[in-house]
């Protein structure tokens, strides 16, 4: 059947959905593929997540390998060539910060969390097609829609799976029985976007029959024009200590030049020795050292009337973000914040009188004295308005005057 326009397609889709719904209601013993999928999605909607996860990552490539890139931003960089990689990873699930330590002891900080919640977030952030935007600042999406008010267990995260990947978005085809990667009995379903949106990249799932949870999800997309690459990414899941964890997966790239196959590369990985520490030192998640040079010598010494204050501005755009350090601290406070903000807008930190590379000011150093200095600095340096003021600890006091 050829649909002439999107409206007809939508109406037919609604009709099919209504028909499927009535069929499933009248034949409850053998639910349709759509209903089966819907039940699994509802099950996936609320799963507990531990605060910390420690595990070992083992990866092997055939024509493909990955490494960790932190410049110009954090991302997993695909490279050609065979390799075997091993990292020890400690992940904090609240913000997905993770410490990677390779076999030589080198430490890198990335965003990574092997729980189902992370995979769900990848589904919402368009993991494959928009990979070229990996350095763009994260979009300010509204909070995930809440589909349940059950909040008795703080470890359970309501993540809005129904709205993000539910049968309202995907058309579902039954592909019969299939084994889960963990060996348990499963049922395979093939998915396609109801609206043909290329960002709806979930193509296949296997549902573990005993738990009604996804034990395998596969994303897929076609990248490029002329020279194209069909990219798929599979995540495998299983119960580990009561949590539904990713235990492995594989990424696959099949290149084509004007439709002719030109290469096939695979990266396979598994997570082993998965543990759930109840706490980890905050230092585990401290960022790796950024370039210290802006803080080891003066940046721009601005004369504010016989005294000089050290000013450090980076980036472009408005508003200008002005960073006010905490009590007893200098612009060094912002060494992990300013490099990231710089990608968004003009950002300035400075040393208050007596700190860092700024000259001393008259006593007492009360808020009026500090704020007077800041006004003078802004005027003398010609820092463009408007401003967003950010005050840390005692710096908050000065940002309110």
């Amino acid at each position, binding site marked *: 059947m050829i649909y002439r326009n999107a409206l007809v397609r939508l109406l037919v889709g609604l009709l099919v959905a209504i028909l499927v719904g009535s069929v499933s209601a009248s034949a409850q013993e053998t639910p349709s593929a759509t209903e089966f999928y819907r039940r699994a999605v509802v099950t996936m909607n609320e799963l507990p997540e531990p605060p910390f996860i420690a595990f070992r990552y083992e990866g092997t490539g055939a024509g493909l390998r990955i490494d960790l890139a932190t410049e110009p931003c954090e991302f997993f960089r695909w490279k050609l060539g065979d390799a075997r990689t091993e990292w020890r990873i400690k992940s904090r699930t609240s913000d997905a910060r993770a410490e990677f330590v390779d076999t030589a002891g080198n430490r890198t900080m990335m965003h990574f969390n092997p729980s189902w919640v992370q995979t769900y977030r990848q589904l919402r952030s368009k993991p494959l097609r928009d990979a070229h935007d990996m350095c763009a600042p994260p979009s300010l999406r509204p909070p995930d829609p809440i589909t349940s008010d059950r909040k008795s267990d703080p470890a359970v995260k309501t993540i809005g799976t129904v709205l993000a990947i539910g049968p309202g978005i995907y058309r579902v085809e039954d592909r019969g029985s299939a084994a889960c990667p963990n060996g348990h009995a499963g049922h395979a379903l093939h998915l396609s976007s109801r609206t043909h949106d290329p960002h709806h990249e979930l193509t296949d799932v296997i549902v573990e029959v005993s738990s009604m949870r996804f034990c395998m999800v596969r994303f897929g997309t076609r990248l490029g024009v002329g020279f194209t690459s069909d990219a798929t990414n599979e995540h495998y899941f299983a119960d580990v200590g009561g949590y539904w964890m990713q235990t492995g997966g594989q990424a696959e790239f099949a290149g084509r030049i004007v439709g002719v196959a030109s290469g096939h590369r695979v990266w396979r990985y598994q997570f082993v020795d998965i543990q759930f520490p109840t706490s980890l030192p905050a230092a585990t998640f401290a960022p790796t050292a950024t370039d210290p040079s802006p803080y080891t010598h003066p940046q721009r010494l601005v004369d504010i009337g016989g005294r000089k204050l050290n000013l450090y501005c980076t980036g472009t755009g408005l508003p200008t973000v002005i960073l006010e350090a905490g009590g*007893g601290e200098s612009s060094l406070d912002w060494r992990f*914040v300013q490099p*990231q903000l710089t990608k968004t807008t003009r950002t300035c930190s400075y040393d208050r009188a007596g700190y860092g590379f700024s000259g001393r000011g008259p006593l007492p150093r009360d808020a009026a004295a500090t704020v007077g200095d800041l006004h003078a600095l802004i005027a003398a340096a010609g820092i463009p308005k408007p401003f967003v003021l950010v005050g840390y600890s005692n710096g908050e006091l000065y940002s309110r005057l």
Partner: protein
Amino acid sequence: MSELGGLVFVEPAFEGNQEARVDAAAPMFARNAVHQIAVAKSCSAASENGPILPGSPLSATCVVPADPLLPQALNDMLRAQSLRAGWWTDSYSENLTAIPLTLEEIRTEQRSYGALPLAMVTAENIVPPGAFPPAEERSIGEIMRARRLPLMQLSSRGYQVEARGCSHGDIVSDCADTVVDAIRAVVAVR
């Protein structure tokens, strides 16, 4: 300040070490604060008269200890700063002797920000877990949370973000991403 497009308070200031309420609820925390004030006072007096000499008895007290997570170049810079004439004096004035004046100025200026975008980023813990007895940690947390609530209400668009796993002193380093996201959100809604 004119042309103010937004505010972000990151772990806003607190007067905990000067409050009888905290002294009563968290005696170990209070004793620690008293000790730190005594150190700052003696180092302030010493630095008024000139640089603190490396190797002198005072330098053992007044030199900021090296942070193992910082590159050597930054530790060197911080060490040099703490030995410099006047650094302790200015810091002591700003954080202790001038604080009552500062707070009075804030109270006088107290105002509503209308609908100005305002985010407050707070740490899950005021003090690092395990640094003080659990009962003290809870008490300090409750007192500070109650004190900060009115700050958010300075704007009708004020809201709070919690940086999980971090404490007051490490939020801008160990939870930098959360801080950056909050600032970006204020920049975006301007």
